[in-house]
């Protein structure tokens, strides 16, 4: 396999997944990956390692009157497995999953979170190390007043176990 082949990194789970549906958490239907095109995860080698600590971002809507209501808090998380190679080359990503945990959501609010991983990965460096990006869309609606503006969060996860999330 040539270097060019290793740099053609794709993700097989490109759908938009709703992982928080009206305050109810749901799992992604399919896990994302960043592997050379045509390579099955089972055919890889190297040292696959699950990240021990997921990327986490807490989103808090502060209650105006804390005496009467708790803050609404959700946490966006991304976890993945990294370090596998193809023919001893490269470091790639598999079993990448985005999820939400709910600490508190007021009864008169609905929060929906959707996520999408990019269709292609980005080769970083000559090795290469695969990088896969994705975005969360957090939409909060109030029962009587409709949908409030979306909040977007982007993340980068890499085949060397590093990663970061930010608000867009």
């Amino acid at each position, binding site marked *: 396999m040539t270097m060019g082949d290793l740099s053609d990194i794709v993700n097989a789970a490109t759908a*938009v997944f709703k992982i928080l549906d009206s305050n109810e958490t749901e799992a992604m239907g399919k896990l994302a990956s960043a592997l050379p095109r045509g390579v099955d995860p089972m055919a890889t080698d190297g040292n696959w390692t699950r990240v021990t600590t997921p990327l986490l971002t807490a989103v808090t809507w*502060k209650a105006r009157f804390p005496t009467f209501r708790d803050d609404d808090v959700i946490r966006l998380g991304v976890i993945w497995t990294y370090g596998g190679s193809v023919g001893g080359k490269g470091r790639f990503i598999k079993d990448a999953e985005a999820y939400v945990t709910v600490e508190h959501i007021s009864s008169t609010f609905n929060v929906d979170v*959707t996520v999408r991983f990019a269709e292609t990965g980005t080769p970083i460096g000559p090795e290469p190390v695969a990088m896969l*990006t994705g975005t969360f869309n957090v939409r909060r609606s109030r029962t009587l007043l409709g949908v409030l503006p979306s909040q977007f969060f982007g993340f980068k996860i890499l085949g060397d176990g590093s990663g970061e999330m930010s608000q867009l």
Partner: protein
Amino acid sequence: MSSDDSWTETPASDEATGDPQSTDSTDTSGQTDTSGQTDTSGQTDTSGQTDTSGQTDTSGQTDTSGQTDTSGTTDSTDSASTESPTTDDQLADAGDPEVDLSQASLGTLSPEAVAVNDFDTSWADGVA
């Protein structure tokens, strides 16, 4: 104070003696207040009458009528405002959410990785 017809005009003792009516802040009536209540008006009662109503006068006014208040009613007092937030206000939020990114980074990204900033949000209206 109530002013119903049951009030009885009782002459002050000063009137019977011809002595001048006391006007200073001393109670010279020789009467006993058995009401057990506290007068917080800061005013002087010169009527020489006994208040047996058992009520507290918080009006801050001076009663010089020489009448006895036996009505058992309490002067109205302004109640302090205890305005509470409406249900709508309680549920409202103060602006955009707070975002805690303190756990949103793992390891150190290479400069090449940091430079990538092509996050796609165009899909946001479609949900699988």
